């Protein structure tokens, strides 16, 4: 099958913004080449996070990589932060162009 799209995984982590620096360090250490961060708001079991002042911001943190790398990042994040922080992790299939950029 000839397609210009290369199969990869998109790992999305929704977290408190206080974890931003730590998450960047985690994915860099794991060998992920790039990431995208967006500020988001929402609610969950622990109440609403309206994100209207700096103590209550949430981020959506995305990386695109292969399955093995995504597993490694997700395992590390779960191990280190799941106990004490609000976290949502999910994995989806995506197709990318310029595959060499996504190890």
């Amino acid at each position, binding site marked *: 099958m000839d397609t210009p799209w290369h199969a990869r995984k998109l790992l999305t982590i929704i977290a408190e913004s206080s974890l931003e620096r730590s998450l960047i360090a985690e994915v860099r250490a794991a060998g992920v080449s790039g990431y995208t961060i967006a500020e988001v708001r929402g609610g969950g079991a622990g109440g609403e996070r309206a994100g209207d*002042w700096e*103590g209550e911001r949430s981020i959506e943190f995305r990386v695109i990589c292969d399955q093995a790398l995504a597993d490694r990042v997700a395992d590390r994040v779960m191990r280190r932060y799941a106990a004490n922080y609000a976290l949502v992790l999910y994995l989806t299939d995506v197709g990318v162009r310029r595959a060499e950029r996504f190890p």
Partner: protein
Amino acid sequence: MSLDPVILFFLLGILARLVRSDLRLPEPLYEALSVYLLLALGLKGGVELARHPLAALLPQTAAVILMGCLLPVVAFALLRRPVGLDRVNAAAIAAHYGSVSVVTFAAGVAWLEARAIAFEPHLALFLAVLEVPGIVVGLLLARGAGAGAALGPLLREVLAGKSVLLLLGGLAIGAVLGPAGLKSTAPLFVDLFKGALCLFMLELGLVTGRQLGQLRHAGARLVAFALVVPLLFGAVGAGVGGLIGLSVGGATLLGTLAASASYIAAPAAMRVALPEADPGLSLPIVLGVSFPFNVIVGLDAYHAFAALLAR
């Protein structure tokens, strides 16, 4: 209680939250207002500071830092015994009460200015130096339980954080340029100060309004703590202010600083360094109890303390 636009805007924000209004200040506006307030406070202090001999400031600043290191220890002791918290949560909350709130200070400045009460310019310097000791002492208190991350990186983050940077930067720029050099910026940084503070208080009213709903989780003892400690620390701060030779206005502001609790720097630092501490205990009492208490009735009380001690 004093009817001041600052208070009324704050109450409007709380009301908006209570009636579930869709009112929401855009995030960038909130961000811009906090940068503005920090710079305005710094510049204002810096301009005046340039007229004073700096050497006289060192012993005063040292005394203020000492106070900033001791108050969180008192808060910790109160949180452990009468309140009955575990060590990590007690340390985290002690850090909040040991550190200071810029907006409470700004409200104090507006309160004094509305009454034409003079105060020393270096109170803005004290605001900058008092942010850090509470956080550090709080972490050291938690350390006893083997908790807490390395102090170094955290310290760097707080010291390079926007509040310390902008306050000290504003002080330095104000001191270098002096009143004449800053005259052209006065329409923005001086004349608009109170209006900008009102907008910020509207936003804080919204935040406080939501925290009020979380108070049940904190419990009655913590709520009592959040009312008693500002009064106690406010009296201590006003007393220290008198002892180190501040005017009544200056001692009022030092009392306000001692009474105030950090809701920006301390929560952020605690979230990173003491993740096992529950922000659901600290934020409702800091924002839902102590902050409104300070701006609505505390300022009058700390001024009364300072005036009493000056007699």
